[in-house]
């Protein structure tokens, strides 16, 4: 019997048992769509995190340290001069962890996270100005501040006018607004939410409030040992100032881990999806076994009029393949829509169509159909035609 004929006869049977066929392919549909959804979402999440990485770039190091002794001398910019001599460091920017301070305007109390840093911060984080200018060297001796766009908006709402040039009272000191930063998308690898920060020069802040530099961002060279060298140097340097705890974030290393995690996670999600699909496949097998025992008479007749075992085997295998093919196809479509919905409304990032999860889900569903169809079809082909024909 030709391929086309087998296909036709197999589909005829599937479509004449609509409800049962639908229930059988429902399992495959759910399994396939879970594979598509899980892998699509994991890939999109991964691509999104890579985007954040791209922004901060390779060889980016963030260092924080914590000093628990209260009598310790605050760390100031001059203490870090020796870092400039280290050739594996391309550039670095120290800063103080942002500290919540409040501005009182009219009756409003506006939170201003204040961080002291140096003019190099602009270049390091690729900051752009909406108005005014960023900090410069001279600001070391003046109380100048540069404000994030959200903070600026909140204050401007109260003062009803442009914030540039105004003077704000923070921690009993007066600071002049010299610039407003342009809006920037949040990036979880940056130490600040750029829209919600107020920068002042570290020198000014330290002399005003006796805070200490707590952190720095460094751009290091491509040298594979660069990170270890920098880490060692900083630890030695800062321990002279009796600082105790260090934490380092090294983008290249974290990215490597992220890649590893993604591979593992995708594999894990695929395994979960596969379980759903295998359950669906068992559903197909169940339906096919029922179908075989119900159609013994037909099988006996087909054998009597000249079908050989292969013909019977093919007929039933094709039925289960068609079932899971349709289940897989619809499952992929449902999966695409479901992941679009989840990505857009729950993860709130841009959806992108990825071919890989769809191909994987579809391929795997058809294979499941083939696999779980073999046993019922084999049983059908081994039936004794005399017993089959005697069935009533």
């Amino acid at each position: 019997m030709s391929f086309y004929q087998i296909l036709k006869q197999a589909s005829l049977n599937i479509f004449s048992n609509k409800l049962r066929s639908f229930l059988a392919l429902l399992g495959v549909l759910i399994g396939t769509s879970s594979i598509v959804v899980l892998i699509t979402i994991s890939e999109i999440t991964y691509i999104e995190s890579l985007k954040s990485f791209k922004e901060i770039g390779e060889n980016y190091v963030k260092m924080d340290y914590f000093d628990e002794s209260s009598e310790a001398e605050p760390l100031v910019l001059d203490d870090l001069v020796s870092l400039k001599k280290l050739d594996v460091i391309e550039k670095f920017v120290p800063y103080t962890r942002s500290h919540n301070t409040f501005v009182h305007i009219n009756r409003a109390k506006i939170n201003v996270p204040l961080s002291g840093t140096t003019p190099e911060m602009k270049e390091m984080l690729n900051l752009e100005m909406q108005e005014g200018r960023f900090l410069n060297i001279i600001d070391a001796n003046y109380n100048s501040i540069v404000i994030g766009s959200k903070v600026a908006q909140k204050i401007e709402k109260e003062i009803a006018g442009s914030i540039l040039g105004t003077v704000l009272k923070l921690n009993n000191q007066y600071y002049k607004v010299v610039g407003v930063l342009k809006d920037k998308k949040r990036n979880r690898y940056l130490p600040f939410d750029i829209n919600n920060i107020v920068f002042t020069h570290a020198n000014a802040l330290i002399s005003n409030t006796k805070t200490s530099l707590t952190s720095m961002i460094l751009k290091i060279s491509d040298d594979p040992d660069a990170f270890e060298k920098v880490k060692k140097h900083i630890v030695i340097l800062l321990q002279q100032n009796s600082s105790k705890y260090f934490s380092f974030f090294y983008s290249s290393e974290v990215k490597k881990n992220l890649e590893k995690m993604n591979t593992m996670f995708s594999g894990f999600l695929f395994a979960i999806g596969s379980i759903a699909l295998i359950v669906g496949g068992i559903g197909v097998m169940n339906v096919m076994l029922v179908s075989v025992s119900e159609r013994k008479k037909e099988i006996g007749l087909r054998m009597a009029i000249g079908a050989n075992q292969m013909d019977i085997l093919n007929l039933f295998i094709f039925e289960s393949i068609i079932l899971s093919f349709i289940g897989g196809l619809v499952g992929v479509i449902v999966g695409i829509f479901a992941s679009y919905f989840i990505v857009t409304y729950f993860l709130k990032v841009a959806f992108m169509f990825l071919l890989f999860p769809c191909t994987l889900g579809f391929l795997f569903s058809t294979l499941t159909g083939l696999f779980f169809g073999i046993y019922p079809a084999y049983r059908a082909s081994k039936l004794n035609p005399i017993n089959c024909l005697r069935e009533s």
Partner: protein
Amino acid sequence: MSSLIKIQNVSKIYKQGNEIFKALSNVSLDIHSGEFVSLVGTSGSGKSTILNIIGLLDSPTIGEYLVDGINVKKLSKNKLAKIRSNSIGFVFQQFILLPKYNAVQNVCLPLLYQGYTQSQAQSKAKSILDKVGMSSKYFSKPNELSGGQQQRVAIARALVASAKIILADEPTGSLDSKTGDGIISLLKDLNEEGKTIILVTHDNSIANNCPRVIKLNDGRVV
């Protein structure tokens, strides 16, 4: 003239648990091309077993069976399916038409297993349906046909692949006597055209009308 069907000292023994049941014992039988034979006997006499052996659905436990001079003993299942497909047509008491297929599709089925294309098979099926008097019912499903009409479709299906041998197992058993007579006379017409017909029946009036009657009792030819 050599026999079309040659059964030599055939016994068929079934084992069910510890019990041994002898369905046929030492049966020898020759049927020539163009004969019209009826097999009669009470239920359990072995007439169905012998029909199954002739139809290559079953094989003898002991003894030889030659169809058209070929000893089928050592043939593979696929080879047997091929001979069934080319030389033997079955007609059953319960008709056994596929319920979702119309008359033409049912009749086409043996041809499709022989590798005919859809269109070749259809035109052949239609001409055979014309021959058995079913030209107006090409596209009727079995549940739209009467018993006699269904049996005519089933006969068409047995004929369509140009089988030399028609094996009819109680073909009138589910029909009223008038419709049954129509079927018998159709089989007689086919016999006159040269088909070898082997008819299993327990209806003596039908058997007595046949040129040759083989009577079986307790697994033996009487």
